[in-house]
């Protein structure tokens, strides 16, 4: 299947050039699409009739203790084990250097027998400091949104529904601060998941754990409300449950991933570009026109309703709202004809902000699930950077000039072009940025910036060729082995259109936020709310079907899948148990 998909991709018309797509600022405008892993996971869950049930509920009157959820798939059984513990306010930080959290949790393969539970209870709350069990597929931790949690519990205890406005301002009750997979701290290696049909998509195990935490956040809030006022407490209305997501706070720790996994990134971006090219090549019908209109209206309303603290991001969202409004009459009125979606994309590229362009592209992809969804099978890849030692060195020089021209174009003598350096702190190995020539640590710089390495390699190759015009790559490397890593990357990535982010990661104007957003969008995060340019709060699964809906075995999978750009529940849509909301609690 993957071969077929990739074959189709190679034959696809008009994929956008890497110089446009891999521009860091553009990548920093991406939003989740139907190929994002949270969406793929929900489709898989619904299609395969996964069942998620609460197996153990051991919270005390303060909401502390442990809760276990079972995840039953056609192929296997898993458990999400969650530990909730008291946390002093001064300990509550989203930074990776934290040592304690409101909740810690893990996704376990198989059953949780008593001895395993004891081991998990001793180690999961310690996170990085623990020795984690190899049957754990994922470990993670999360902190409360204290404000929302208080609003929700108080409202429910009084028999009221919390205001939707609270979710518009903060989309969740808990935000995760790191979600670890792939062998970290002793948990299972990705190699074990590679052939597991339940988790064959990248990050699907992590997404599963996060999805279950969303249910826990609801269950815990309702439990505390019942404890407070057993006589009046009510459950959270289904519409508000749906509207509630799970937050995530991400910092620079995510940035190196984008650079160290260029083949994977290429795969993801290629799939998205293939989906976009496929969508643009379709002949629009009246039904697809109406669908695009409704998606644009929904996305626009979503942006209007979403309160973002970051001034720049809020301004960007406001521009997208205006521009989407401008597009609507065009979509409504133009004659349906072949090439119309290409015209729309061309127009947006020429006239609209990059945020709106990529949002519109995402909505175009949404129109054609039957042609696009199979691309999710092409999102994983076996990664290995390999040398081609017998490549003539002059050919390697040509490859660099052809495909890494963006790296050669940078003037690294300019102070602003070599302003930042990346390093890893001794504090939990947190990646950080330092100012070159000012901050200590330059001697231990992390080699994340690809462009300067390519340029240095290119210069050395050019000089070597002067004396050895018929040399092979291996001849050069035996003389100058320090260039091996870079040349291996160049030779491997020459066959991957979209692997290299075309930016100078040393540049003073470089925004790490764009790197974070690139990955987060593919994971399925939305509601980007940057805190400065080095960390960001996002929300996952807002609007996604609830566990109850999943367990009732949805028959309309199209409707089950249609949950992106969740809108606030309209007034009067709440359950009849209590109609009034409590704006005063805000």
């Amino acid at each position: 299947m993957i071969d077929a998909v990739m074959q189709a991709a190679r034959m696809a018309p008009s994929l956008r050039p890497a110089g446009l797509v891999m521009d860091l600022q553009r990548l920093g405008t991406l939003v989740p699409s139907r190929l994002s892993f949270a969406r793929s996971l929900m489709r898989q869950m619904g299609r395969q009739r996964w069942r998620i049930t609460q197996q153990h509920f051991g919270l005390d009157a303060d909401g502390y203790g442990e809760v276990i959820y079972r995840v039953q798939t056609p192929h296997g059984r898993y458990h999400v084990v969650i530990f909730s513990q008291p946390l002093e306010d001064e300990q509550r930080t989203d930074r990776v250097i934290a040592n304690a959290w409101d909740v810690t949790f893990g996704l376990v393969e198989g059953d949780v027998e008593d001895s395993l539970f004891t081991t998990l209870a001793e180690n999961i709350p310690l996170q990085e400091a623990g020795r984690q069990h190899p049957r754990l597929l994922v470990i993670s931790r999360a902190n409360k949104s204290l404000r929302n949690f208080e609003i929700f519990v108080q409202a429910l205890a009084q028999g009221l529904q919390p205001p939707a406005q609270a979710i518009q301002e903060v989309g969740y009750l808990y935000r995760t601060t790191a979600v670890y997979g792939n062998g970290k701290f002793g948990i299972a290696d990705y190699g074990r998941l590679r052939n597991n049909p339940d988790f064959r998509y990248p990050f699907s195990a992590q997404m599963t754990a996060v999805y279950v935490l969303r249910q826990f956040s609801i269950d815990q809030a309702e439990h505390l409300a019942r404890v407070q006022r057993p006589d009046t407490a009510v459950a959270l209305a289904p519409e508000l449950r749906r509207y509630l997501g799970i937050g995530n706070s991400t910092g620079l720790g995510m940035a190196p991933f984008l650079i160290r996994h260029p083949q994977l990134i290429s795969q993801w971006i290629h799939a998205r570009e293939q989906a976009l090219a496929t969508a643009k090549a379709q002949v629009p019908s009246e039904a697809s026109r109406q669908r695009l209109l409704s998606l644009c209206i929904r996305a626009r309303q979503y942006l209007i309703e979403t309160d973002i603290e970051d001034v720049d991001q809020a301004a960007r969202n406001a521009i997208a709202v205006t521009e989407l409004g401008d597009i609507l009459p065009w979509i409504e009125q133009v004659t349906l004809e072949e090439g119309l979606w290409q015209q729309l994309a061309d127009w947006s590229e020429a006239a609209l902000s990059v945020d709106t362009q990529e949002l519109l592209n995402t909505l175009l992809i949404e129109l054609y699930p039957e042609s696009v969804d199979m691309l999710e099978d092409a999102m994983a890849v076996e990664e290995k950077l390999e040398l081609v030692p017998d490549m003539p060195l002059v050919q390697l020089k040509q490859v660099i000039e052809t495909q890494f021209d963006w790296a050669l174009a940078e003037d690294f003598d300019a102070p602003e072009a070599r302003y930042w350096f990346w390093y890893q702190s001794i504090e939990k190995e947190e990646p950080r940025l330092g100012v070159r020539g000012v901050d200590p640590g330059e001697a231990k710089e992390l080699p994340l910036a690809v462009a300067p390495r390519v340029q240095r390699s290119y210069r050395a190759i050019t000089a070597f060729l002067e004396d050895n015009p018929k040399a092979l790559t291996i001849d050069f490397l035996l003389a100058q082995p320090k260039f091996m890593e870079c040349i291996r990357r160049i030779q491997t990535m020459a066959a991957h259109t979209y692997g290299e982010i075309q930016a100078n990661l040393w540049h003073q104007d470089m925004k790490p936020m764009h790197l974070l957003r690139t990955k987060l969008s593919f994971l399925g995060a939305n509601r980007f709310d940057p805190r400065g340019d080095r960390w960001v709060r996002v929300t996952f699964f807002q609007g996604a079907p609830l566990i109850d809906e999943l367990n009732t075995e949805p028959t309309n999978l199209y409707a089950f899948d249609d949950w992106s750009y969740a809108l606030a529940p309209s007034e009067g849509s709440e359950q009849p148990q209590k109609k009034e909301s409590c704006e005063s609690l805000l």
Partner: protein
Amino acid sequence: MKVSFNELQGLSRKAFIGIGFAEGHADDAADMVTWMESYDLSGLEALNKGLEHLIETNPDTLPEILYQDGDLAVVDGHNLSVLRASNLALELAFAKARSRGLSVIKIRRCRQRQLIMGYLARLSARGMNVTAFWRNAHRPLTEQVVGFRANSTVPSIRVYAVEEVPEENAPNDGITLIMANHVDLLPTMRSDYRYDLLAKHEESDLLAVRERAMSSGIEVAPELWLRLKELAQITLVESFDASRLGAGPAE
């Protein structure tokens, strides 16, 4: 203590960088050690034995080509570990075999020779048939042959003791490699001279071992783990209040 494959690979890589390996070469060395250990072929034991020597070696010392022609090369390993000296020599053999159909490379004077298997696995995965041969000097003399079929990452290994050999005066601390584009080079024991087969690892046995390592982790001596962590820490930068801002402003 048990660690995951990825953990061992990651920590080894950082430790090698801490020792002074260049990026890429550290990746290769870590891959070689972890590959060996995941097949229960004593990769960590070999690393542990040679670790202090690795640390003491000048990182600028490089293997040297003594002779080469179209399909043959002799490399002086300068008494380096194969973790430092073998990856590019093997790539040279690969290039020659691609060009001429078959190549022979002798790496003289090298240490921790068994660790070379990890890189051979990488070359075989790129479609090359590979055989490596070396002799251990201790008594009784033992010889080891490791063969990989093209596109297989699992070797076939024979270790055997030999007695009826002429007296040898020169130290035999080299390794001989043969690579062939199209010809299977797996070891099959056949000799008129006496030998005692000491170990025979078939592909299927090794795959089962690897499966176990992936599902239940890899056993590492806590002292070695600690030592690797110490070496890895060399790559990290001390933290202070201002540097914490390097990850963004506090909340």
